[in-house]
């Protein structure tokens, strides 16, 4: 299901429960920052398990055709380059990943496992006489575009965002996964306290049981299923589309 930003809950909504469970409403056991960090930690873990935060950003193409990987991006979904502006997109091309390519940027040449012209190799000869090759590779965390991309103005990146880096810290908990976050944070906080007082081991064990992070019978899996489920509209449209066999 798509995340509705208007429904997002604050970190404090979750902590209001966790701190009661931990009997630490006055923060005499753990600091407020520790609790906050655990909520973000939980949200990020859930985000890595099931991508629920697609992010789209436009960047002006630099002269050297090297674009820094955006902060908070952990999984590229799409790269498009286009002419015009983000408000008035003109001609669009999809940029594909080319394996094993290294370049120092625009007009510095390219090396690759499979080169564009390699007619002297006795074992593996290649000759691709083509223009308008729009591809990219990633080196050292930098997206490097092929020289042919230079005729475009903008690059649009669509990627999975790390939740804690992309969501407003005031409101960042999707209600669909509130229960899972609550259990996850409880497990971690109780784990942090069990060396101080063994009774927290019981709290941790109980919360772990409800969470079942690596199994299929807990709030963690339930949250993932909720997030991965298609909206009903999308599902109906997909069924309709498939039923028509694309005619």
């Amino acid at each position: 299901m798509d995340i509705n930003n208007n429904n997002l809950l604050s970190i404090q909504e979750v902590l209001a429960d966790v701190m009661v469970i931990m009997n630490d409403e006055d923060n005499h056991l753990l600091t407020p920052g520790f609790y906050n960090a655990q909520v973000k930690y939980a949200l990020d873990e859930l985000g890595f398990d099931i991508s629920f935060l697609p992010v789209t950003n436009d960047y002006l193409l630099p002269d050297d055709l090297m674009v820094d990987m955006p902060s908070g991006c952990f999984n590229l979904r799409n790269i498009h380059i286009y002419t015009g502006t983000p408000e008035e997109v003109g001609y669009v091309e999809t940029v594909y990943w080319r394996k094993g390519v290294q370049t120092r940027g625009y007009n510095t040449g390219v090396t690759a496992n499979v080169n564009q012209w390699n007619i002297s190799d006795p074992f593996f000869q290649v000759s691709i006489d083509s223009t308008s090759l729009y591809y990219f590779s990633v080196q050292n965390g930098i997206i490097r575009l092929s020289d042919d991309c230079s005729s475009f103005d903008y690059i649009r990146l669509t990627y999975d965002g790390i939740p804690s880096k992309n969501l407003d810290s005031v409101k960042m908990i999707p209600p669909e996964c509130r229960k899972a976050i609550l259990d996850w944070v409880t497990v971690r906080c109780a784990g942090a306290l069990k060396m101080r007082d063994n009774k927290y081991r019981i709290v941790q064990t109980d919360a772990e049981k409800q969470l079942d992070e690596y199994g299929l019978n807990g709030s963690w899996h339930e949250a993932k299923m909720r997030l991965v489920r298609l909206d009903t509209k999308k599902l109906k449209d997909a069924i309709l589309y498939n039923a028509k066999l694309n005619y």
Partner: protein
Amino acid sequence: MSGATIRMVVYDLLGDLKQVYDDADLTPFKVYFWVMTFADRLRKQHIEKIDSGAYVERFDVTTYIDTTTGRNYFTLPAAIYDFDQDGGIAFITYPPKWDLSLPMFSSVTFTRTTPGKAARLYFREDERPTPANPYFYRLNDRIYLLGVEEINLTSVEAGLKTTLDPNDLTVDIDLAFDFPQDLIPILKRQILDIGRFVLQIPTDKINDGAAWESKNFPIQKIASVNDPTMNPQYQQDGYQQQ
């Protein structure tokens, strides 16, 4: 606060110990000292056990900057109980006047830490001491504040679990006794015990040398037992010298 006054408790104990006459062995001040000392101990146990704000006192405290270290601190305005993890400090917050102008501080309380543990707080942005996420730690009678170095903090509001000070002679003993009423029977019992014990101690001993080994030395004039003048029995029996 209502209930018994300190005077009532003190004179009740003096009456029970039969010490209400002139030149009594136990003076009211001595019993007052006992009352305050034992009450302080019982009160500490009570506060530690009962989760209540009944014995939390609020103070507006002026903060200073240590000229040597540059750290913000304030001095404890009263003696507090030394509970585990500085539990004698119920809360420290920004003063209410700040809350009106800076709402972000209104719900902020200073979190307890120690100098040793404070280093870890700087490892993570969420825990880093800031004006919105401040900390305190105690060193003797000083409370140091972390995270407020960048703001001009002049005072804080502190809730403290203060002790009864037996040495404070300015206490008005006719005011209500700041002590759990339900513990007064236990307090009385403990003071009666100590009072009875004290009263059983023998009166002042005088160093008359009685414990000295030479006590057996004759202290009277040595006289012959055969001296009739020294032995009246001879005279009564009509003994005649031959």
